[in-house]
């Protein structure tokens, strides 16, 4: 490790001959550069970015966290102009937070001279977005292809709990990046670095503070040649893979006061959250629901029935206001009365009611997919809370009452993000796996006839189970029937749906079922007196979703699934089967998935059974070729034709 660092320092000193990493020292070489050397597709690049986080004392003697960011950005192409408009949001909902830009300059090469255009006040805007935050925005002047821009902004905030994240990586290449963090001896922070980019951390040193009479611990992070971040399909949240450094306050130890511990591990994160009045206290109230719940609970005795009764009661009474938080906002009592609440109000209320009915229920902290994976212990890693019931056998049932269509262990998809943390009444905590283990099935049965003109008519029955059912109810049931059918007809180009019914719309315990009649005039090809068609009809997948040769990031599917198709197809009079595709069975390595295809015929009827199993919802990039080949084999088979000839 040491060797690598030494080598790294060596590199640094070499490259520093060519470039000066100080605002205002733009070189002619930088201005002359036409394309980015490592990434010719880059429309712009960060030539260097320097961050400095440190503390100072304000006039009243309180600590203020200062974060300074300096950037030099090269604009190669017109598409890169967007990087010449910079916005920084900041919190304005409480104590004074200051944010200001300075030293914003655009450099251009005019002949062989450097032309410098400074940002004036007419290029700087402050927007009050709402009560809680504002945005400072600058539009750099005189930007052209080839320009180099520079700017610095400084954030001064008393909220040292919310240490600003530092991004080493962004949507354009970053040639050089350095972050220095200086933390007074009175604070302990934990830090966490995620992402794939190589970032070196130098050993921590203790230095005397330049102004005040205390020591700072100083640490420096450096990175070079960091690749641009590019979007890929099937990624839950690209932030999970971006190189970002985060800090979390672990403890304060001010002179003349006791040590105050915050979250240094998951246990204490959980405890800190539990101890907050907007969390733990809210679990203790019960008077608000007793009178409503008592009469209902009296009649049922079985444990399972009590769970279902309470879960359904909360789901039907409460309406989620689409706000995420593990803290209550208006509190469970008010939420209960108004029938509207945020996630915490609804699920803590659920937990409290279950406990009231003698069920061992606990809250589980969750980070939603949009919030990113909670990699390391901190309070902001989470943004959501659900409920877990501890079973006799040590297993758990997970409940989230914010969606009307959820079931025990069938959570809204936003929750399916690795692990959460359960907090018990005694404030101990435990990691809980949130990823669905069961395979969500879909069963499709089709009976169809083909006539001599090539028209297909038939009946289809589609049964959705588990997560498939939940997703169907969440997304499609709220569409109008006509719009839904029009969407299906669009998806399966050319199919026309006649009589259509659904079953078990509200009966969540049962599979969601669709039954319909269809005709399709464009499925079958009649060429030279023969008839050709795919035996999976319009259900045959035609396009491989994985087109790229290489993959940077893992592939995420919503949940493991199984699709099982059975077709029974009657061929037209006057024709006989000339050839059928062959049966096939493909299994991905480590049983990550499989595709089985069987076909046979009896008289004028062709029977097809096809099963697709995808047993994992997360594939690391190493498995990308496997996954791509699996889809290729599957699609090829699904598109092989049955050939009919005239008798």
């Amino acid at each position, binding site marked *: 490790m040491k060797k690598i660092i030494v080598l790294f320092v060596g590199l640094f000193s070499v490259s520093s001959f060519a470039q000066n990493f100080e605002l205002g020292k733009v070189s002619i070489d930088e201005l002359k550069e036409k394309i980015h050397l490592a990434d010719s597709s880059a429309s712009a690049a960060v030539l260097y970015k320097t961050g400095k986080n440190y503390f100072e004392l304000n006039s009243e003697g309180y600590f203020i966290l200062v974060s300074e960011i300096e950037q030099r950005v090269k604009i190669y192409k017109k598409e890169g102009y967007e990087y*010449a408009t910079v916005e920084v949001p900041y919190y304005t909902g409480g104590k004074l937070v200051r944010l200001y830009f300075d030293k914003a300059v655009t450099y251009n090469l005019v002949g062989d001279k450097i032309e410098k255009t400074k940002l004036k006040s007419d290029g700087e805007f402050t927007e009050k977005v709402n009560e809680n935050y504002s945005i400072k925005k600058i539009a750099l002047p005189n930007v052209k292809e080839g320009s180099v821009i520079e700017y610095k902004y400084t954030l001064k905030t008393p909220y040292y709990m919310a240490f600003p994240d530092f991004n080493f990586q962004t949507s354009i290449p970053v040639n050089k990046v350095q972050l220095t963090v200086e933390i007074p001896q009175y604070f302990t922070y934990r830090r966490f670095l995620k992402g794939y980019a190589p970032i070196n951390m130098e050993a921590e040193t203790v230095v005397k503070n330049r102004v005040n009479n205390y020591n700072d611990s100083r640490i420096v992070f450096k990175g070079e040649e960091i690749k641009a971040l590019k979007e890929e399909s099937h990624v839950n949240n690209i932030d999970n893979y971006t190189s970002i450094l985060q800090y979390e306050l672990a403890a304060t130890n001010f002179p003349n006061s006791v040590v105050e511990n915050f979250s240094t591990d998951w246990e204490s994160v959980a405890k800190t959250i539990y101890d907050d009045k907007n969390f733990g206290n809210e679990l203790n109230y019960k008077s608000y629901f007793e009178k409503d719940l008592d009469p209902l609970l009296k009649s049922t005795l079985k444990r399972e029935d009590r769970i279902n009764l309470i879960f359904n009661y909360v789901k039907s009474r409460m309406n989620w206001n689409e706000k995420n938080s593990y803290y209550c906002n208006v509190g469970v009592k008010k939420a209960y009365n108004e029938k509207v609440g945020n996630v915490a109000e609804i699920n803590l209320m659920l937990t409290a009611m279950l406990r009231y009915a003698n069920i061992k229920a606990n809250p589980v902290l969750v980070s939603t997919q949009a919030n990113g994976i909670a990699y390391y212990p901190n309070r902001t890693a989470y943004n959501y809370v659900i409920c877990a019931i501890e079973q006799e056998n040590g297993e758990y049932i997970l409940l989230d009452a914010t969606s009307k269509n959820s079931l025990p262990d069938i959570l809204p998809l936003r929750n399916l993000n690795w692990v959460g943390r359960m907090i018990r009444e005694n404030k101990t905590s435990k990691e809980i796996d949130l990823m669905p283990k069961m395979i969500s099935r879909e069963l499709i049965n089709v009976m169809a006839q083909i006539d001599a003109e090539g028209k297909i008519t038939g009946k289809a029955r589609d049964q959705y189970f588990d997560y498939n059912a939940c997703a169907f109810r969440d997304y499609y049931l709220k569409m109008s029937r006509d719009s839904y059918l*029009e969407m299906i007809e669009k998806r399966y180009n050319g199919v026309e749906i006649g009589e259509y019914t659904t079953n078990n719309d509200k009966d969540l315990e049962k599979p969601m079922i669709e039954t319909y009649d269809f005709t399709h005039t464009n499925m079958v090809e009649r060429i030279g007196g023969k008839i050709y068609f795919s035996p999976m009809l319009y259900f045959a997948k035609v396009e491989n979703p994985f087109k790229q040769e290489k993959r940077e990031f893992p592939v995420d599917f919503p949940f493991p699934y199984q699709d099982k198709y059975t077709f029974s197809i009657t061929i037209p009079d006057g024709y006989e089967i000339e050839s059928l595709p062959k049966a096939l069975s493909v299994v991905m390595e480590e049983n990550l998935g499989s595709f089985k295809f069987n076909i046979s015929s009896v008289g004028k009827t062709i029977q097809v059974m096809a099963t697709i199993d995808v047993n994992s919802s997360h594939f690391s990039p190493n498995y990308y070729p496997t996954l791509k080949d699996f889809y290729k084999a599957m699609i090829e088979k699904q598109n092989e034709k049955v050939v009919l000839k005239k008798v």
Partner: protein
Amino acid sequence: MKRNFLHLALFFLTFFSTFAQDDTYLVASISPELKENANAVARLRQRDINITSRKSMTILTKDVVTVLNQKGLSNVGASEYFDKSTKIKSIEAVILNAFGKEIKKIKRKDFLENSLSQGSIITDGKILYMDYTPTEYPFTVVFQSEVESSNTAFIPTWNAIQSSYEGVEKATLNISSLPELNFKYKDFNIDGNQNIVKETKLNGVSYTAINLVSIKDEEYSPSYRNYIPHVLFGLENFNLEGVEGTASSWKDFGSWVYASLLAGTDEVPWETQAKIKALVGTEKDPIKIARIVYQYVQNKTRYISIQLGIGGWKPMLAKDVDRLGYGDCKALTNYTRALLNVVGVPSYYTIIYGDRQKRDLREDFVSMQGNHVILALPVDGKMYWLECTSQTNPFGFQGDFTDNRLALIVTSEGGEIVRTHEYIAKENTQMANGNFSIDENGSISGSIFIKSKGTQYDNKFSNGSKSADDLNKFYKSYFSHINNLKLKKINVVNNKEEVEFSEEVLLEATEYAKKSGERLIFALNAYNPVRGIPQRYRTRMNPFEISRGFYDYDEITIDLPKGFIIEAKPDNFEIKDKFGDYKAEYVVLNENQLLYKRTFQTNSGYFDKNEYENFRKFREQVAKSDNSKIVLVKN
């Protein structure tokens, strides 16, 4: 006569019944036909506009909307815009349950505020909106507000139906003004509508609409302005951010824009004057000069929409654009105009609606209209149109954002309504030439050379500046019907002089031809198949429009694998219809070679909803022919 009487009776019936329910708003009393295709029903949308002086307009709104399901939430609205000259004097809402009983009151302090700025749009406009989570469906929102503005240049248009999937029980509009302001109005799609009653007054008008059924969003629908009843309003003597304006004719209005918004904005610093004069040199041809100036602007500036204060209507000074190197459409257009002026080429600031869906300035109604500005360059009786917000458009290229619509050119002599360039089908071409061969395993390899012009150029030319990576992604999706695709070579050239985009692609893929025993089956149109068929509607409600035509021609030589013979191939196919012409020809050159020729023209037009199914069938036949396959069998 009898018919008429019935209508009258019905009218009174509904009138009385709505009157009787006015305070209760029972969901049960909504008539079934208003709920059809509706996510919400407007029980009452009442707007009273009172213009008490040139500098004061008050708008009272009462909206009572029953939300039938979750999707209907977006129909509620319950928000108001405000800025420095527009103040919200009161705003409140009451939520009623299905039985009309009040379940919640939302006071002004419970409304949330949000800025309308985002990204490169900077404005001081804000919005106050209701944040309400429904506890049950259906429910009814009774929203009331009073807004006062000192701007009288923009009187909101009244739409009898405010949005799709909404039935309307009753909608009213009542407007009155002062005589000296010369109030005027014009209604559209209202004459002959039995459900809308109009009442004219001195210096005002009112409309009452009763029982309008919901409209749907449908593919190929023309702008709703073609079929929704709506009314435009205006004052001949108005106030815009403290500037007094007049709009009695387009000529006068243009003079006013010129004198009040443009005059004095076009000063260019002498350094830039010298620079531009040096660039132009001795060139005399106004078009060549304009090309030089346009290129100069494209290289120097970028688009940022800054709509602050009067800047929302008046262009930023040319000298500021010169210094900052950015501006919005008004600023960049005016800057280009100022530079052209320096070198003695006249050009006109032009107000237009910029949108892919065409929208005219209403020639027969003079008022503040348009949402975009471009530059008109008159040379020898012909008009060239310059889009000054683009850093990449070829000179004089309009594309589909501002084509074929009425716009207002502003000159020192006044305004004039002019139509911008119309792209006819034969201008929007895609000409392709190529070949491919299939081997005995069904793999395809081939190359294609495509040239695109007109609106087809518009669709593609941004690819000219894409990176190799992004081009690879683009062609993988462009040829997404070919699985296992490998792109061997991609070469694109954006010829801005000729306004022509060329593409050369070399590709290969395994399993293009599907094996079936001894046979190989594949589609002969490998490169340019029409895939999507227009959406089928159980009952089409709106008329439809094909806004621009196009013309594609493909000529592809196909090499067949050795050792195979053609067992069956598609027959030549041709259709001619009012929607377009299509022709596919398959010529056997020799036993191992075929020539595929395809012509596909789509015509623009505006059609009745009854024609929609025919249009769909036309496109279905094209898709079917494009997908038709050849069968080869081993010899």
